[in-house]
């Protein structure tokens, strides 16, 4: 079992004909993902990697029954692409593109919310249900099917943790990189709820970093009662006080975004906190076995 994506997921890749899009779509297909369509305006009718290309997502969905979109277009057009996918009726939009302006994301997120469409990202590695479906840029081979769910705000840090879990003999149910941008799609809290109800997930790992208050909110969910063991890590414990955080925004959220506060909130909620990243896999393995 898994959350959000599985072997039946049908993926449309927006930006399939670009260099990055094509490279990663090929990797996804090799992993076994059902990539059923591509979208590049003006290139409708072509075929790339054996996948039909359409001018619009709406057409791609009608013709192929795609239900998840992967957005691989340049930042300036990414918010528009996410909205197009939502309007076409997919259930989930995965946005890999980075450097999308915040104002664009505020508008796109409101557009998606109004249609009940979920988003993963932007600026993230994507989502993978090992052995079934990989949607994103992750190295597939480090994953292994299993029962540990993983949610992370970072890219290569996610790979590091997955690699440690797999090396410790622990497979994963679904791994989601939620991205580190100010405005993101699915967050720790929403994914904790999805994992709560997934019978195929026995434990959840939360990989956070400094900034924002996502970890504190996740800790509150666990503190209120969570049926599965949760493990946490926060990158930036020794980072010097943030150079780039506007503090007035933090006043409203009530959080300073410091790693110490996040770890303390996690510990108080009963989350098993790992401070030294090198110990993560071993700690999870010891607790679960």
């Amino acid at each position, binding site marked *: 079992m898994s959350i959000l994506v599985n072997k039946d997921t049908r993926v449309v890749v927006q930006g399939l004909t670009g260099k990055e899009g094509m490279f990663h779509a090929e990797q996804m297909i090799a992993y076994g993902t059902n990539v059923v369509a591509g979208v590049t305006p003006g290139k409708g009718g072509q075929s790339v990697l054996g996948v039909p290309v359409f001018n619009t997502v709406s057409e791609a969905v009608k013709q192929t029954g795609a239900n998840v979109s992967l957005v691989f277009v340049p930042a300036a057009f990414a918010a528009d692409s996410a909205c197009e996918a939502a309007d076409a009726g997919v259930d989930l939009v995965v946005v890999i593109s980075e450097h999308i302006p915040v104002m664009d994301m505020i508008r796109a997120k409101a557009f998606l919310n109004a249609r009940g469409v979920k988003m993963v990202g932007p600026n993230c590695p994507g989502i993978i249900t090992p052995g079934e479906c990989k949607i994103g840029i992750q*190295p597939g081979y480090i994953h292994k099917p299993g029962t540990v769910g993983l949610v992370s705000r970072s890219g290569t840090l996610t790979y*590091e943790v997955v690699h440690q879990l797999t090396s410790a003999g622990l497979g994963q149910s679904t791994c989601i990189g939620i991205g580190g941008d100010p405005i993101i799609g699915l967050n720790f809290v929403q994914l904790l709820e999805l994992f709560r109800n997934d019978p195929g997930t026995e434990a959840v790992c939360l990989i956070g970093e400094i900034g924002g208050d996502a970890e504190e909110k996740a800790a509150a969910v666990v503190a209120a009662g969570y049926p599965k063991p949760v493990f946490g890590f926060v990158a930036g414990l020794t980072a010097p006080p943030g150079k780039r955080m*506007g503090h007035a925004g933090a006043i409203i959220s009530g959080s300073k975004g410091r790693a110490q506060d996040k770890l303390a909130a996690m510990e108080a909620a009963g989350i098993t906190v790992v401070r030294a990243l*090198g110990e993560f896999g071993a700690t999870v393995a010891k607790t679960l076995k």
Partner: protein
Amino acid sequence: MNVHEYQAKELMAQFGVPVPKGGLAQTTEEAVDVARGLSGDVFVVKAQIHAGGRGKGGGVKVCRNLDEVKDAAASILGMHLVTHQTGPDGKLVHKVWVEEGTDIARELYVAVVLDRGAERLAVMASPSGGMDIEKVAEETPELIFFSRMEPGQPLWDFQCRQLLFGCGLDAGQVRQGTKMLQALVTMAMAKDATLVEINPLAVTGEGNLIALDGKINFDDSALRRNPDIAALKDPTETDPLELQATELGLNYIRLDGNVGTMVNGAGLAMATMDVVNMAGARAANFLDVGGGANEEMIGKGFEIILTDPNVQAILINIFGGILRCDVLAGGVVAAAKKIDLNVPLVVRLEGTNVAEGRKILEESGLAFEVAASMSEAAAKVAAVLGGQK
């Protein structure tokens, strides 16, 4: 991206926010000329650096005549202004802003901020202006008012009324303040600002509102579509190494330790820094060469790290991902040979073809320490440094 007070005020004025008349000066003569062109008999000379707390550090002076303006400009220009935000070395002042003095009856605080949690902009106001707003939030949170905008909706008048009557303004001032807040929101949306702050916003003796300071934070991701904003960047405000790194496409932040770190991906880079520090060494920098590291980026990374004279050892931590480790190892070896590396190097590689990659490092003839895990990498770095003492 941050801008100077004078740039923030000029931009706010373009959107209809009242600001004191003034001008920029880079010499004492220019400062006097600017003051001569202003009306009134009180002038304020203000150091232009990207940091708060300038007044306390001696970077803001109120002057009663042109001689005082001259003296103030002479003392501020060229000084290393130290505030709670500059670090102990302070910042060299290249420019001053000279403006007409304002008859201040009260000082408020207003801001437009990105509320990440609510995924929208919010407006804030406080009757406790002229103070560090974080301190106000801590000590008297009841004196901070905010109202969130609905995406796709304007900032409604009633939202402004709630905030501004809350600050104790009268009806006429609330009307002025409403226009001002709406102008700030329009500006934030038009120019992709994620923080716009006026602190203090003065109520003058005549009862009018005027912005005495301005701080704006722009979204770096949107600079491409706002060339007028990108042009406001002051390169002297950035650490020269960080500036060079940005030009090379690297994400580099200089720290005060002696272990240079080079990592692919920001989260892993931060975690690597943590591991180094927890092992008893001190990271000299944060350096993210990008998720898909390649030989070219590694070469550039070496270049930047070694420009810092404090670096006594380097730790490279690369998670290969889709890129193959043998290719990356070849890149590290080539880059190290090219620059004639003369400090100990610990390399931790993981990912596809890791065995081949480590073999290339070990057989390179270069004095690499190869580590199999993050913990081992940090321990080796600490050991290498310990051995040098």
